[in-house]
């Protein structure tokens, strides 16, 4: 690591002003768990890091709005989210996901904003939050904008964020009537990044799939919504045969890539199996609730 400037602004606006839309060597840092790995390996050599630590107090709260919306500060640590009663009430799938996300040491340090902004397709929270219909509230020099999590990613380690924009909050809408599951499939150690992530939220109405959001990550270049497979499902009677068909459809739809966690052809098989299993479990949850 070579020396660099570490800025520690006290307000969000100061932080945004210290960022640089043009310079890739200036970046915000929250938990630093992802950035430090890149810096140690020499992949990233910053000129300036803008620490968000002193801004944290205002952007790490977890609150519930009157309409049932859950607002999570982007600087909340993953552990804080894991142990929040509000989060558990609105979306228990988030807590379950956290338990298998890396390890407690990483969760104590890593922040929600970093997990989203890094753009790494192997992160667990993007598929989960997007299947819940969540959106990111983003602040930049010219004010605020909202981005659906499913639209946040533009490629492998790429997001639609400008270099001088910061994620400030994530809003999760009320989940009344929805049932959600996340399947993280690892192929090496249990605490590895996923080889495949499948998140599924659905509503069952009179035994049929009323609505569904189906997300795939890790095996694909970026978080992807399986739109065609959702069409196969919508309005259909929930059944083993339907889930099988959806699995086949997902396998055909997803653009799975090779990596050290498995070949593309193997991971395509995993897509088929895990989509089926996710639908099966989510529909059981939907019927029970």
């Amino acid at each position, binding site marked *: 690591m070579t020396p660099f400037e570490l800025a520690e602004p006290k307000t969000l606006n100061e932080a945004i002003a210290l960022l640089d839309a043009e310079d890739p060597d200036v970046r915000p840092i929250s938990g630093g768990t992802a950035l430090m790995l890149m810096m*140690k390996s020499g992949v990233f050599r910053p000129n300036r890091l803008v620490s968000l630590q002193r801004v944290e107090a205002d952007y790490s709260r977890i609150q519930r709005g009157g309409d049932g919306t859950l607002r999570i500060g982007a600087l909340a640590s993953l552990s804080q989210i894991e142990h929040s009663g509000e989060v558990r009430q609105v979306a228990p799938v988030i807590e379950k996901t956290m338990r298998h996300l890396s390890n407690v040491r990483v969760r104590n340090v890593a922040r929600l904003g970093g997990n989203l902004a890094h753009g790494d397709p192997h992160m667990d929270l993007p598929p989960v939050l997007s299947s819940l219909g969540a959106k990111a509230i983003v602040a930049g020099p010219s004010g605020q904008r909202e981005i659906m999590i499913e639209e946040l990613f533009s490629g492998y380690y790429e997001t639609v964020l400008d270099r001088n924009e910061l994620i400030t909050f994530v809003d999760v809408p009320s989940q009344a009537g929805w049932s959600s599951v996340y399947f993280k499939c690892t*192929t090496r150690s249990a605490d590895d990044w996923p080889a495949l992530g499948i998140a599924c939220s659905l509503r069952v109405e009179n035994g049929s799939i009323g609505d569904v959001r189906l997300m795939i990550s890790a095996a694909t270049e970026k978080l992807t919504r399986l739109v065609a497979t959702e069409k196969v499902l919508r309005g259909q009677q929930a059944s083993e045969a339907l889930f099988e068909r959806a699995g086949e459809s997902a396998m055909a739809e997803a653009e799975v890539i090779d990596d*050290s966690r498995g070949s593309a052809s193997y991971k395509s098989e995993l897509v088929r*199996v895990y989509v089926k299993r996710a639908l099966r479990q989510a529909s059981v949850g939907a019927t029970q609730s």
Partner: protein
Amino acid sequence: MTIHSLMPAGQVGRSLPRLEARAKVTGRADYVHNLRLPGMLIAKVARATVAHGRIVSIDTSAARALKGVFAVYTGEDIRKHIPQPYYGPAFHDQPILALDKVRHVGEPVAVCLAEDAHIAERAAQLIEVEYEEMPAVFDEVEAMDSKAVVHDVLKPAGTFPDLKHLHGKKDTNIALDFHLKRGDVEGAFASAAHVFEHEFHTQQVMHTPLEPMVSAAEPTREGLTIHTASQSPSFVRIEISRLLGWPENKVQVKVPHLGGGFGAKLYIKLEALVAALALMTKRPVKWSLTMEEQFYTISKHATTFRIKSAVDADGKVTGRSCAVYWNGGAYADIGPRVTQKSGFTAPGPYDIDNVAIESYALYTNRPPAGALRGFGIPQLVWAYESHTDLIARGLNIDPVEFRRKNILREGRPQATGTAMKDAAIDLVLEKIAERMNWSAPFDRGTGTVLRGRGVGVGFKASISPTTSVAFVNIYADGSCALYMSTVDMGQGSDTAMAQIVAEVLNVQTENVRVIHPDTDVTPYDMATLGSRSTFHMGNAVKLAAEDAKQKLEAMARSVGVPENANIETREIFKKKYGMQAGNVMGVGSFIPTYKSPDSVTGMSDNITPFWMVGGTGVEIEVDTETGHVKLTKLINVADMGRPLNPNIVETQLSGAAIMQLGFTMFENMEYDAGQVTNASFADYKIPGIHDIPPDIENHIVLAEQGGGPFGAKGVGESATFGVSPAIANAIHDAVGVRLTDLPLTAESVLRGIRLKAGNPIGE
């Protein structure tokens, strides 16, 4: 666990916690990692980017120009100070910094020194090297006759007689060829009722000690002091003095605690470079590797093992031939020893009259391979226990029953001809079968989750002949200290050795002070490796303590203390010296007998001072839709004689098995043109807490090691032996798929299932 009774003084056999536990958990234990010396320079190296290539030029100007850089050196600069800058335990083949050519990606080519580690690191990145690339060889079997030759001339170190014939050899990558022949193998195959032949592979993996390698050297008035995280301080002193042409007494080597070793920190690693740099700069120099750099420093051999067996109509194995190819990487390190010492056990713990073994150490253009928790044995057990299972299945005999029929029992000759002694192989097998309830009906699962079970049993000879020396010093107040060069890298040797002293002197173990290796103070020991310390150093320690005791008793007699008088030790010293003064120094030196294998037949009637025996039984669940294997039960059983400290023994058994679990299920150094593509913990995964099976048992069979201290022998490696084949055998049992290559990934299991179902998965 089986309970052995305590020895008379109540110290040996006691499960006391580790002596250093409190210091470690409160962060007070010493590690070289934390060492700072006044005026110290930090070294960072520039590493080769090609697998095999002539060095055309090295441009260090940009690195030198960087502000804060103290010096930049290449191999040629080292050669000016040390005319023959090549080191290694078996071959003098490894240059301190690359000379003339590089032989693997990641080989150190130049070094940058600065007071600030970040500046040294930046400087190292500024070094430009131009190579003329040469053809490279990466596969061990191809290396047997490849056009790419890693070393122009072979340079055996001269320490091992069986390497002498390789001196000066050219155009070969074979760094040792071990052959053994006993009985009439061709005859056995000609008259066999059944012949089975298989080929197995293991992958290259790394030790991943959590404290990466680190060494510092300090010029002193007398010579050099080296502070190093080493498992072999005595060897470091010998090798550094050889390189420098100095007498041994000018080199001091000090070793505090180690954050893991597993064979990575053996012989000589970073010490040669820091020693050279300290002399060249006249300043202390420290070099710490990152976790990533360790992948380019030492690893465990990848292997190919071809095994063929002749079996008669009764299911008795009558002949076996073994050909083992060890991928040693670019420098021999201790690979040739692995090739021979493990090689002669390649037919496994079975009573087979006719055996032939060929075992080859091969140079390739990968990072070097050496010893890793088992010294080659896990690679062999993987193959012979998979093969054994396949034979049993082929003959429709229960796998445990088949082993019983063929197992090598006490008194019977092993492949080398040495009769087995104090090797409870049969007891280990029976204990596994008992704990697994082997004869009871087994639930095979339903739907997409099928269950299976498997066993694997292996054995290992101890490296020999090797020497250990210990001192036990009784001070005038009656307290005492143990001086030894055994390195406690987490295995608990300080505690176990203190228990031996305490037992002999009839004191509390907690009151025995253990002096850590310092070659100016502590006596010679070959190294902390191959589970040899309990037996070898344990004997030396026991002899030293007994010597001290006898000298103390003689002193008591000399001052007129009657036999069996109830008198405190301090009073004896007072009577002798008139005040609190003097010492009693006990010395113990131990070297077991040994006969090296015959150079033609490979035979010996005394091949090892003791045998290690370990086995594993597992139950698993296979997800037939994804290929995932879940371990539900893991039973490790070993014969380690009498445990000195049952708690430490248990943690060694579970630790070894879990480490081997990683090597079995997913650890794998992946390559692209000789470059390791996953050289970091982000991408090279080791087992975490969720990978450990819910049900894990460790057992010691009731046994006693003749000639071992209080009947004890080594334990650090035994539970690695059976893990890999037990799991592969269980997979076969569950879904009928046989995997012959490690690691046993979910993908390979699913591919096997689908192939068998006639519905293969595309490439």
